[in-house]
C-alpha cells in the first residue's frame, strides 16, 4: 500500500499501554541481559533448535514463496478495507448468536471483559495464551475487580507462577531452562492450586505431567474462559485458535461463557483465506507441518455464550502510517525473534514490551508512540541484517520500518551537531581536503574514546585511526602510485 504519506504524530493523543511500563532504554537493558550467561545459554539453545526446525519444514513446501506473497496481499487488502470487513465480521458473529463489543483502548477492553465476567457471577476465569490479553494487562485489571485469571498454557503458567514477565511471543518462558522450571513448579504450584508432585524431576515430560495434573481440575470446574484468536473470518464469523497442548481446546470448549479479545487487524475476508494462513503460520512459528490442535467456531457454539471484543489500542494509528502499517500484517509467528542476532543475545525482556524482537522493535514504538526513552531506542535494537524480513511469512520489511522510525525519533544534540558539522565539511571538496590535512597533522592527538556526551558512541565502537595522509594527497603526490 502506498500513495500519499500521512504521518502518525510523534506523540500519540493518549499513551497506549502494552502490558509493561516503558522504563529504561534498550541499550541499558541489553547490557544487563548479555551479562547473564545462563540466559544467553538458554536463548542460544532454544533459538537454534527452532530455527533449524522452521527451515526444514519451510523447505519442503514447493510453493512457499507464492503462499507468502498471497499472505502479504491478503493482509494488505484486508487492512485497506478494514472498516468494511469489521462490520461484516460483526454481522456474521451476531447472526451466529454471538455478541460483539468494541474497545478503543486497553482500559475499555478490560472494563468490558470485567463486566461480562461479573454478569456471570463467577470470580475465576481460565485463559488461553493470547498476546492481546497480555498487551492490555487483563490479569491485573481483572484482579482489581476481584476476579482471578488462571493462565493455562504451559509457558504462561511458568511465567505466572514465577511472577515473571513473558520474553517471547510463542514461548513466553524461553528464558527459563528445565531446572529453573522445576524450581518454580515445586515452589509455587501449591500457592495456586494442586501442588507439584513430591518427586518432581526436571525431565520435560515430568514437568508437562505436573502441569496437566495442576490444571485438570481447574478446567473441569471453571465456568468462564478468556481467549484471543489467530484469525477471525469476516465472511462467516468463524474464529480460529491455533495451539499445541489442548489447554486452548479445554478453555474454548468446557466453560459456559467464552470471551475472545481480538485485535482489529486479525480479521480475514474469506474462509478460503485460511488455506494460505494455515500453511504459513504453523511452519513459521513452531516449525511443524501443523500444530497439534486448531479450533474453529462461529458465534455461540454447543450452547455456550460467546462474546467477541474487538480492540483498537493504537492499531488505527499504525494503520495511518504509510511505511509502518505493514506491521499490522503480523500473524505473531515469532520467526523474526528466532533468527534475530540481537534477540538471541538480549532476550525479550530488554525490549520492555510484550512484543519483543524485530517485530516488537517496530510495533511497540508505533503502538505506544515515541514519548519514552525506551520507545525511542527500540528502532536501534537491530543491526539491520534483514534476516527478519527473509523469514517473515507475510513479508513485513522490518529493516525499512526500523530506518523510517529512526529518522522520526528526535536525535540527541551531540549527534545532530556532529552530523551538521560533517555535512558542512563534506559539501565542498576544498573544505574536506583542508580538514583531512589538519586531521592528519593532529592524528596523534586523536582520543581513543570521545569525551562528554559523545562517549556513548565510542562505548560500543572503536574510533577509526586517522591516516597520516589522505587518499587524494597520496594520489597527487604519487600520480596514482606511478611515481
Amino acid at each position, binding site marked *: 500500500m502506498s500513495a500519499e504519506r500521512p504521518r502518525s504524530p510523534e506523540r500519540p493523543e493518549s499513551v497506549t499501554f502494552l502490558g509493561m511500563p516503558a522504563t529504561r532504554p534498550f541499550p541499558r537493558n541489553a547490557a544487563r541481559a548479555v551479562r547473564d550467561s545462563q540466559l544467553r545459554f538458554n536463548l542460544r539453545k532454544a533459538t537454534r533448535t527452532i530455527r533449524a526446525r522452521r527451515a526444514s519444514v519451510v523447505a519442503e513446501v514447493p510453493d512457499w514463496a507464492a503462499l507468502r506473497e498471497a499472505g502479504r496481499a491478503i493482509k494488505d487488502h484486508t487492512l485497506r478495507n478494514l472498516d468494511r470487513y469489521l462490520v461484516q465480521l460483526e454481522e456474521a458473529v451476531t447472526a451466529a448468536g454471538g455478541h460483539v463489543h468494541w474497545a478503543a483502548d486497553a482500559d475499555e477492553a478490560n472494563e468490558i471483559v470485567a463486566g461480562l465476567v461479573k454478569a456471570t457471577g463467577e470470580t475465576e476465569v481460565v485463559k488461553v495464551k493470547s498476546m492481546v490479553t497480555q498487551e492490555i494487562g487483563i490479569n491485573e485489571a481483572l484482579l482489581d475487580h476481584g476476579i482471578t485469571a488462571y493462565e493455562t498454557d504451559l509457558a504462561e503458567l511458568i511465567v505466572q507462577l514465577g511472577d515473571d514477565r513473558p520474553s517471547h511471543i510463542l514461548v513466553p518462558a524461553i528464558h527459563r531452562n528445565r531446572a529453573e522450571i522445576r524450581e518454580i513448579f515445586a515452589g509455587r504450584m501449591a500457592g495456586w492450586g494442586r501442588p507439584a508432585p513430591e518427586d518432581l524431576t526436571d525431565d520435560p515430560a515430568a514437568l508437562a505431567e505436573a502441569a496437566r495434573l495442576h490444571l485438570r481440575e481447574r478446567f473441569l470446574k471453571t465456568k468462564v474462559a478468556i481467549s484471543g484468536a489467530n484469525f477471525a473470518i469476516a465472511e462467516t464469523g468463524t474464529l480460529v485458535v491455533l495451539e499445541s497442548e489442548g*489447554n486452548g481446546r479445554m478453555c474454548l470448549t*468446557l466453560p459456559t461463557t467464552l470471551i475472545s479479545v481480538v485485535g482489529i487487524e486479525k480479521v480475514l475476508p474469506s474462509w478460503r483465506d485460511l488455506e494460505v494462513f494455515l500453511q504459513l503460520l504453523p511452519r513459521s512459528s513452531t516449525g*511443524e507441518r501443523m500444530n497439534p490442535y486448531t479450533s474453529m467456531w462461529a458465534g455461540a457454539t454447543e450452547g455456550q455464550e460467546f462474546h467477541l471484543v474487538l480492540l483498537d489500542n493504537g492499531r488505527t494509528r499504525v494503520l495511518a502510517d504509510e511505511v509502518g502499517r505493514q506491521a499490522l500484517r503480523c500473524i505473531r509467528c515469532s520467526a523474526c525473534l528466532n533468527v534475530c542476532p540481537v534477540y538471541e543475545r538480549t532476550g525479550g525482556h530488554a525490549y520492555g514490551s510484550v512484543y519483543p524482537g524485530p517485530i516488537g522493535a517496530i510495533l511497540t514504538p508505533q503502538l505506544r508512540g515515541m514519548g519514552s526513552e525506551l520507545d525511542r531506542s527500540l528502532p536501534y535494537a537491530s543491526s539491520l541484517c534483514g534476516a527478519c524480513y527473509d523469514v517473515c511469512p507475510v513479508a513485513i520489511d522490518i529493516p525499512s520500518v526500523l530506518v523510517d522510525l529512526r529518522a522520526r525519533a528526535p536525535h540527541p544534540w551531540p549527534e545532530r551537531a556532529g552530523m551538521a558539522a560533517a555535512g558542512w565539511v563534506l559539501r565542498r571538496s576544498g573544505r574536506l581536503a583542508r580538514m583531512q590535512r589538519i586531521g592528519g597533522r593532529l592524528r596523534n592527538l586523536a582520543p581513543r574514546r570521545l569525551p562528554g556526551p559523545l562517549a556513548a558512541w565510542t562505548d560500543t565502537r572503536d574510533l577509526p585511526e586517522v591516516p597520516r595522509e589522505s587518499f587524494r594527497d597520496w594520489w597527487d603526490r604519487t600520480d596514482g602510485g606511478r611515481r
Partner: protein
Amino acid sequence: MSRSRDLILARVRRAVAGVPDVEVPRAYRGPSGTPGEIRLFEERLRDYRAVVHVVDEAGVPERVARSLAERGARRVAVPGGFPAAWTAAVRAERVADEPPPTAAALDALDGVLTTCAVAVAETGTIVMDAGPGQGRRALSLVPDYHLCVVRAGQIVAGVPDAVARLDPLRPLTWISGPSATSDIELNRVEGVHGPRTLEVLIVA
C-alpha cells in the same frame, strides 16, 4: 459501546483514505481435487508419534476391539452415528454421548472412539466437525485416549482441499498428533492437556 464502534471505524476510514487497493495473487497450489496418499498420511501421523494401523473394512471391528483391549480400556465414549458394526467385537463398556456427559464424567472414561470429517495427507491432520460419529468437541478432548477411524476416501492431499470441503459454520477441531508442547527448551514433548495417545485406523 457503540460510541467506540463509530470511533474505531472512523479512525480506520481516515487512516486508509486514498490508499489504493491490492489484488491478491493466488499462484500457490490450490485445492488439487486428487485424493490424498494413504502412505504419506500414515508417515506424517507417525512423525507426530501417533499410533497408526491400515486395515480393510472387514478388519475394522477386530482392530478396534484389539486396540481397546491392548490399552486396557474398560469404559469408552462412543458418539451417536459411529458405525455399530465397528464396535461389534468391543468388550469395553460403551458410553453414549446423549445426553451429553459432564466434563467430570468424561474425565472418568478410559478413551473415546470417533470418526472424522476429513483428513489431510501432507500435514497428517484429522479434522472433526461434530458430525455423525464424532460427538461434541469435549468428547475427543477430555479422555486421555482417542481412537479415530478414517476412511481412505476422506483423506485429501493438502490444506486447501480440506478448507474447501469443510463447513465454516460448524465447530471444527483440527488434530495433528497427540497433545504436545514445545515450551520447555523448545523440545517437543507429547502429552499435556489433550489425549496423550492418538491412535488412527485408516480403512483402505
